[in-house]
């Protein structure tokens, strides 16, 4: 008796949220752009999940290291053995692109989520409390913003040490090795958080003066509760849109940095790495400039469609979630 009534209550309590979600989905379905974006992303998610099936890793090897059949310098065009061909030093392109999908998601999500977290923390405090705290934090943010992103990211990359000692107590030593890819991620986070801070702070400034916030204070809510339960849920939507657009941008930036030589280690399954390996082969032979088209075009297409998918979805989110257009 109790369980069934509880289940009933649960269903009833969740139903309005479900109704809203269903409405959101119906809006997604109505716009062809968002359907395409969603389709692309679902395809990539499938590829990432099925990576071990599509491109089985060699045993006893880090699956993220691309296998090399030999060490010949010149890339081979697509053939039966290698569906996408091979790039410099015979790294298999098919393997690289498939496992690179996982890396791309990892880069995108980790950087965006971390930037969001930092941005949320600083933006909330600055926006909600205002005054001198706001001034200080915002000026600091402006300083970071003033540097050209890529250059600053490279500078951070250089500054992060390879080995970090977390604890040292006599004999006991706990050091971790920071992989180059992680260094890239950290650098991108350190460069990326200001934009989130600004957007979040702006939204919070808008929401802060609304009546229901004052009503919550009149009921006796503490500042923390007001922030977490009222302010943030109402200001989160522009952030969601920005984050989804940013995932694609971050992957692009990471690829650009790889191309410049700062990125994952050589042989790591990462689209940026593959593009970086193709540096010498962009102009091909004297007679045939596009002789090695597969080396840069194929990873390029992967990057392009990935970013496109996120951009389309982000645009769709914006149209859907904007409250003025939403209920048209």
């Amino acid at each position: 008796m109790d369980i069934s009534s509880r289940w009933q209550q649960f269903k009833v309590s969740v139903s309005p949220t479900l109704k809203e979600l269903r409405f959101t989905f119906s809006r997604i379905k109505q716009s062809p752009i968002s359907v395409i974006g969603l389709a692309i992303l679902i395809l990539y998610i499938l590829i990432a999940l099925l990576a071990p099936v599509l491109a089985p890793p060699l045993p006893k090897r880090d699956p993220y290291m691309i296998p090399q059949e030999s060490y010949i310098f010149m890339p081979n065009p697509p053939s039966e053995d290698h569906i996408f061909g091979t790039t410099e030093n015979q790294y298999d392109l098919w393997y690289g692109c498939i496992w690179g999908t996982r890396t791309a998601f990892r880069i995108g999500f980790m950087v965006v989520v971390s930037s969001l977290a930092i941005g949320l923390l600083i933006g909330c405090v600055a926006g909600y409390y205002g005054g001198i705290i706001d001034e200080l934090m915002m000026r600091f943010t402006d300083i970071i913003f003033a540097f050209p992103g890529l250059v600053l990211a490279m500078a951070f990359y250089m500054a992060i040490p390879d080995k970090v000692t977390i604890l040292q107590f006599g004999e006991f030593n706990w050091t971790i090795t920071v992989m180059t890819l992680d260094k890239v991620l950290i650098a991108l986070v350190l460069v990326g958080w200001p934009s989130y801070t600004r957007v979040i702070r702006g939204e919070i400034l808008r929401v802060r003066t609304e009546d229901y916030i004052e009503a919550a204070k009149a009921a006796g809510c503490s500042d923390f509760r007001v922030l977490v339960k009222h302010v943030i849920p109402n200001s989160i939507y522009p952030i969601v849109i920005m984050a989804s657009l940013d995932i694609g941008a971050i992957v692009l930036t990471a690829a650009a940095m790889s191309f410049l030589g700062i990125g994952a280690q050589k042989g790591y399954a990462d689209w940026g790495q593959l593009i970086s390996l193709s540096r010498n082969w962009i102009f091909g032979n004297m007679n045939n400039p596009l002789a090695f088209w597969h080396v840069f075009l194929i990873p390029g297409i992967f990057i392009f469609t990935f970013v496109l998918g996120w951009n389309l979805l982000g645009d769709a989110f914006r149209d859907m979630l904007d409250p003025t257009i939403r209920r048209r």
Partner: protein
Amino acid sequence: MRTLLDIEDLVLKFYTYEGIVEALDEVNLNLKEGETLGVVGETGCGKSVTALSTLVLVPTPGRIEGGHIFFEPGDKRVDLLRQDESVLRKIRGKDISMIFQEPRVYLNPVYTVLDQISEVYMQHRMKELCKRAIAEIDNEIKSGKASFLVEFDKSMFKEMLKNPKSSVLKVVSKIPILNRYKRRLERMLRKEVVEILRTMEIADPERVVNMYPHELSGGMAQRVVIAMALACNPTLLIADEPTTNLDVTVQFQILNLIKILKDKFGSSILYITHDMGVVAEVCQRVAVMYAGSICEIADVMEIFKNPIHPYTKGLLESIPLPGKEFKSIDGTVPSLINPPAGCRFHDRCPYAIEICSKMKPKMVEVKKDHFLRCHLYVGVRK
């Protein structure tokens, strides 16, 4: 008195994602020349969209699907719903003007008061201004006070008279010395605008003319909007709740002003409001609207003394009076996406009979000049 505006069987639907909103359901209204007709109703009953439909300015998901709006300012009778955009643009602002509820929202925040009222002038009374400018120049030449290049200015004005959009004008207006004719035009416009602001009882119009909308108080902003609307002496003025957002003393001033201006300019007014007190102050005839259709139209005394439609009765009874118990109309306004069948008021009506839920009543003249849409009184005749 002849009819100036005749809305016949107007049907308006909004196509939204949540369904089709049947906003207006065979609205029938007529406005006689020189009178003030009040349209009363609650939020969502469709009075604002009726006003917008008259100007054929209904925003996009809305589509007018039937009916006629006959407008007869002079001897020609036109159906506004079947005219071209170019014809309509000549009518809007000149023959039919509208003033809105929140004045500061409807004024462009980056232009001064002078710029905005001048814009209305330039749009509709350009020819008059040019003729006056030419006459002025001729006077100056005759009296010998002409400064140099005045002949050139005159030819520019003649050009403007012939073809305001000519490319010659466009080119000359950019050349520094040759575009002095503009100064004369600006001077004339400024004088006109100051005059009209003075008619609006704005103290110190010289100063107000240079202000931006955000510097104006609510009452002043509303006067500026009225000035814009009356700049071209329109035959019909549509006022969409112009005093709802104003303080009560300012409301009193504006209502007084509207009465004075009506007498002075002889316009007819379609006054939309939800406040019965304002209706009693300003209007001669009243139309009561509910959920997209007109329930009752009668003379203002009739409506207050002898309301017939149950909704009108309910509305008048719910006006709070001290000592009296608060009476209200049960229920809420129905959603217009799936409006109730038959008479839209039947589920809240204390006198509903069976036919009310099945068939929509037709507008019938039950007494002289007293129109009603209700099944209860169908048999009643003069």
